[in-house]
């Protein structure tokens, strides 16, 4: 169904964002501001591969990646770091490429004075300065709040370090898995029946998602506030606090009731819930999840599976008994789910009003009817990688346009150097060439480049 839309402009047209950002939260936040029409410039250095955005190492080992065949977040097209026609590896890394759209990537060695002078000129021409490094990184370069405010009083400065700008752990360093461990998510994510000290693997982090969406929202609140006061401000968004904010019950139950919530895994404190094996038509591993909240759901469930005799067992006939006997109940449910395909389980149960769904593998996500009908994926052609389907935007918006990520696919290292230095900063061809010759800028890592880990 097509609905007529009204003509509107990009909400953040005319706003310039300067990103001094590393892995996930910062670059992703910049991309989201880019989606809304801001011009998102993101600096990198050819002397330093930061935050694993473009690679674990400046010069990757081809053999290592050729042998990673179980997916993950660090990979290259066809498992080849360098492309078949010599395409540059830093522009082919799945981790960075997943979130470098609507971004003007440029390089600059700001560790040398001349580079820093140019960086300051860009700061003066920006509305929003985003950074998510450790708290000491920017001040060490002279980029303190006081200095930034002095050279550009209207600048909105957003700092998003792991633990904040103050407090005993302010300078602790960590990636997602480390921080999520420190704020209790890892502990909460164990299998319910595992001993207290056993942890399961995290292939999901909440801090990045919360941070990536809070930073641009705070930036927009800053823009609204700036209209009232005419001045910029310093905004601090600790990434660890984002996790604490979206898992409130764990802390509140301890602080208010003195209880440490168990690791629920797939169970639920007041519903029959689990992840069950299926017949496995879709992949070698095929699972379905089911939630039975109340008597109505239970009756629907029993009807959907044909009311077998065990459904009438008093052990399962009311909500309290079902929760008490869930281990036994799970065996009955599993015996039924094993006879069916995970999608069939969803459709059969949902037809009776029972919440259920398949555990989707990557392949299943791309083939899912709902996602296809929502036209969710964006086909993007990036010159170093070719054409692939990328994940789409949050929400469907009727009138307000978002910048098409396909028009600005994942930026290459230094791809927009000319745009930044000639068009924005007005450097001459000769001055620009000097920056190239002196390795202030470039489109490939300099020999001897270092990595952050």
């Amino acid at each position, binding site marked *: 169904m097509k609905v007529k839309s009204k003509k509107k402009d990009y909400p953040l047209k005319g706003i310039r964002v300067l990103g001094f950002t590393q892995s996930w939260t910062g670059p992703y936040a910049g991309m989201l501001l880019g989606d809304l029409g801001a011009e998102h410039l993101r600096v990198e250095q050819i002397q330093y591969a930061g935050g694993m955005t473009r690679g674990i190492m400046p010069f990757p080992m081809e053999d290592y990646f050729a042998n990673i065949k179980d997916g993950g977040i660090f990979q290259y097209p066809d498992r080849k770091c360098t492309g078949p026609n010599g395409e540059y590896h830093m522009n082919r890394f799945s981790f960075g490429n*997943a979130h470098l759209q609507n971004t003007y990537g440029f390089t600059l060695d700001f560790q040398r004075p001349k580079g820093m002078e140019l960086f300051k000129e860009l700061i003066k021409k920006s509305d929003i300065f985003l950074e998510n490094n450790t708290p000491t990184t920017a001040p060490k370069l002279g980029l303190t709040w006081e200095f930034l405010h002095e050279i550009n009083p209207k600048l909105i400065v957003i700092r998003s370090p792991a633990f904040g700008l103050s407090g005993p752990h302010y300078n602790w360093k960590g990636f997602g898995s480390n921080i999520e*461990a420190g704020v209790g998510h890892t502990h909460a994510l164990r299998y319910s029946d595992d001993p207290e000290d056993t942890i399961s693997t995290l292939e999901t982090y909440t801090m990045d998602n919360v941070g*990536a969406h809070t930073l641009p929202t705070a930036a927009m609140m800053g823009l609204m506030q700036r209209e009232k006061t005419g001045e910029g401000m310093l905004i601090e968004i600790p990434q660890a*606090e984002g996790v604490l904010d979206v898992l409130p019950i764990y*802390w509140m139950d301890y602080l208010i009731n003195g209880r440490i919530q168990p690791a629920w895994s797939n169970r639920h404190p007041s519903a029959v819930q689990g992840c*069950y094996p299926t017949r496995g038509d879709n992949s070698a591993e095929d699972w379905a999840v089911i939630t039975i909240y109340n008597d109505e759901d239970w009756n629907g469930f029993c009807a959907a599976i044909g009311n077998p005799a065990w459904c009438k067992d008093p052990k399962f006939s009311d909500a309290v008994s079902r929760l008490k006997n869930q281990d036994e109940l799970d065996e009955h449910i599993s015996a039924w789910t094993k006879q069916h395909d995970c999608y069939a389980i969803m459709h059969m149960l949902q037809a009776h009003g029972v919440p259920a769904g398949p555990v989707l593998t990557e392949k299943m996500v791309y083939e899912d009817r709902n996602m296809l009908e929502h036209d969710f994926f964006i086909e993007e052609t990036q010159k170093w990688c070719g054409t692939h389907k990328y994940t789409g*935007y949050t929400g469907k918006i009727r009138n307000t346009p978002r910048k098409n990520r396909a028009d600005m696919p994942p930026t290459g290292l230094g791809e927009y150097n000319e745009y930044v230095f000639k068009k924005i900063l007005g450097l001459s061809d000769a001055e620009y060439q000097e920056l190239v010759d002196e390795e202030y800028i470039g489109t490939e890592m300099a020999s001897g480049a270092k990595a952050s880990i």
Partner: protein
Amino acid sequence: MAKQPLEGIKVLDLTNHIAGSYCTKLFADYGASVLKIEKPGRGCLTRSMYPYAGDDPDPDKSLYHLYLNTNKKSLTLNLKSESGQKVLLDLVKETDILVESFAPKVRAALGLDYDTLEQINPRLVMASISNFGQTGPYRDYKASDLIEFAMGGAMSSTGMPGRPPTNKGRDASLFETGVQAWHIIVGVFMGTRKDGIGDYLDFSIMDTELAGCERRTVQLLTYQFTGDSTQRRDPKPVIGIMPRALRCKDGYLNMGVGPTKFDKFLKLIGREDLANDPAWNLFAFDKAEEAMKVYEDAMMKKGKLEWTKYFQDNGIICISVNTAEDVCKDEHWEERGFFVKQDHPVAGEIRMPRGNVHVDPDWWQMKAPAPRLGEHTKEVLTSLGYGKEDIVTLKTQGVI
């Protein structure tokens, strides 16, 4: 001069569960006036969610309700009645942003469609948050946070090999949807406040999960690049022969040691001999088994907090695997005043996390605790011009 950035923005909250309620909480905590419309008698679903303060299942004591509805006002209204609909439309006239989370069928039955509402208020920004979106084959399907994570998140790769995939922290997927929706609604509102043209937003929780800044986004691209799906992995080597988790005297440590810091790590655990041995490096896979023994022997000598401080002080990434108790007693959050105290008229003294955006003077403010059911009904109706007797009539007829 307004101190909070969202001051002056009027939000009508017709949400009933976590994602929507968290989205409107974020508006309220940063200054917007948020009016929550609740079903007379029962109220918002978040009032009847485990756990409760003092384990007392009172609609004002659910910890979800106490957290999700801070700084909001509550109006009870029977939206199925014509008189209730009239009140709603009066409110829509002066609303900037309306957020609702009814099932699409229910939304339509309640007459909450944007085409109608924009006739009354052309500046209205309306957002619907539903399990699978307003259109598509699953639009009427039910879900839970586990089902949303299974279909939109990285569940298939979360957990251990040979065991079922597992959920992440309880309801995190739904809270994250709330943050994402907040972001996009503010983005759209940035345009509307300039051009006066309203908009309609349709959030599917499943799509939102997939659009988030999560491992899943990259796993999907890796799949596009190689055809490989991300498998559940043991907490064995994350890079080379360095595991993600190391056991120590009183728990676990979560490590982040890359190729450039591996030698330093070996020195710091007292194995300078190995650090200087050219046969030992992060990718010496033939040493994998021996390495685990080396780590275990060294790490059991100290506790998790001691190790964390020691490694952090020496430039190695390491953070202890903390329990809720460790987190709540952490000196860092104590000093930052992160867990704020609040007096609630029914639940008593409670504590909860504050917002993660810090500005001086603070944009995040705790001005009022979560409201009691219908606490502001009279106040709101009076402001709409209903007299004392009208309010009695509405109450008698079960509208409020």
